[in-house]
């Protein structure tokens, strides 16, 4: 009996100690890890979209609650004015979700650029949505608050040849981004004032 109690006590104490240590370290490294992930996974897309801004968009970010989730917005300062935000969206592609980053000018609601962050599309076909600017360039300068469709669906975007499903997913993702933007714009405008 004594043996069993000893076993239970030792294992319990050890587990508690281990749990406590891990919780402490996790708490201590959480922000750092988030920064690193942003830097290496989404950083390239963000910097590409906010090309030419004078601040560091990954450091200058804020979060807004959207229903149950939180959305991160990355601020771009152009000509001394914080007037551009980039944020994430996603659409359904051929091989799964396509992660998108959309940059929009909050003064005229026009898209400045979009980029694909993560995807599992067919290499060499659907993956062109990320590697070639042909698709994303078509979104430049369009107003964000409307729905986007590929030309075969009666829309305005030329699909990548052989990758209609991917292109459709990107369009749906950007349309969704427009909806989010419409919903959250008042808060975005409020928050961005802090970054002047």
């Amino acid at each position, binding site marked *: 009996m004594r043996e069993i109690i000893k076993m239970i006590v030792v294992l319990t104490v050890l587990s508690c100690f281990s749990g406590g240590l891990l919780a402490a370290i996790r708490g201590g490294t959480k922000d750092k890890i988030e920064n690193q992930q942003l*830097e290496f996974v989404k950083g390239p897309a963000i910097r590409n979209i906010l090309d030419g801004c004078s601040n560091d968009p990954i450091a200058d970010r804020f979060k807004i609650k959207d229903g149950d989730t939180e959305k991160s917005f990355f601020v771009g300062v152009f000509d001394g004015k914080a007037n551009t935000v980039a944020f994430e969206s996603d659409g359904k592609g051929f091989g799964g979700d396509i992660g998108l980053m959309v940059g929009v000018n909050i003064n005229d609601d026009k898209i400045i650029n979009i980029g694909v962050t993560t995807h599992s599309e067919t290499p060499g076909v659907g993956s062109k949505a990320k590697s070639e600017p042909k698709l994303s360039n078509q979104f430049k300068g369009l107003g964000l608050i409307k729905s986007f469709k590929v030309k075969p669906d009666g829309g305005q975007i030329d699909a990548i040849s052989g990758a209609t499903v991917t292109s459709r997913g990107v369009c749906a993702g950007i349309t969704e981004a427009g909806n989010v933007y419409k919903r959250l714009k008042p808060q975005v405008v409020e928050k961005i004032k802090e970054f002047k």
Partner: protein
Amino acid sequence: MAKTITQEFVKGLWDEIPPFRLVLGLCPILAVTKSVENGLGMGVAVIFVLVCSNVLVSLLRKIIPSQVRIACFIIIIATFVIVVELLMQAYTYPLFLKLGIFIPLIVVNCVLLGRAEAFAYKNGIIASIADGFGIGIGFTISLVALGALREVFGSGTFLGMSVFGPSFQPFTFMVEAPGAFVCLGLMLSLMNLAGNK
């Protein structure tokens, strides 16, 4: 007569160098040694976990009941592995992306459990630290040696720098899984040859 601290340390570098003498922990050895950098990163992670777990096991060896010792070892090792994983994500994210699943898999690496069971559970703390460092550094040396061999022939680079110049045709077989087995086998036989003299 117990061995001296130096002996405990040195044995990990040749007599009991993990992959070649103990032939333990082969999974990461085969998988991550595509380049020197990966091997080094993995090795450092293993040294850290091994030394920490050896210290703790050795400290607690009078308290841990022998019936549940394996469970206790695994808790201790797993804790330190997750610590390494978090730190790696926080400070060397690109390396973390390359090593990926093999960092959490250090938990089930036989070298660590083997040292806890065979050494730290029976020896004092100083000897355990020496053993941890010795075996850990031995492990790292093997990873780096294998990584260097495979990187130089497989991609024609060393730590990312070109060795043979642009005209070199990489021997890609070496960076794939079969190449890992062949390299490991060759190094094992060479070490046996040297040991038999």
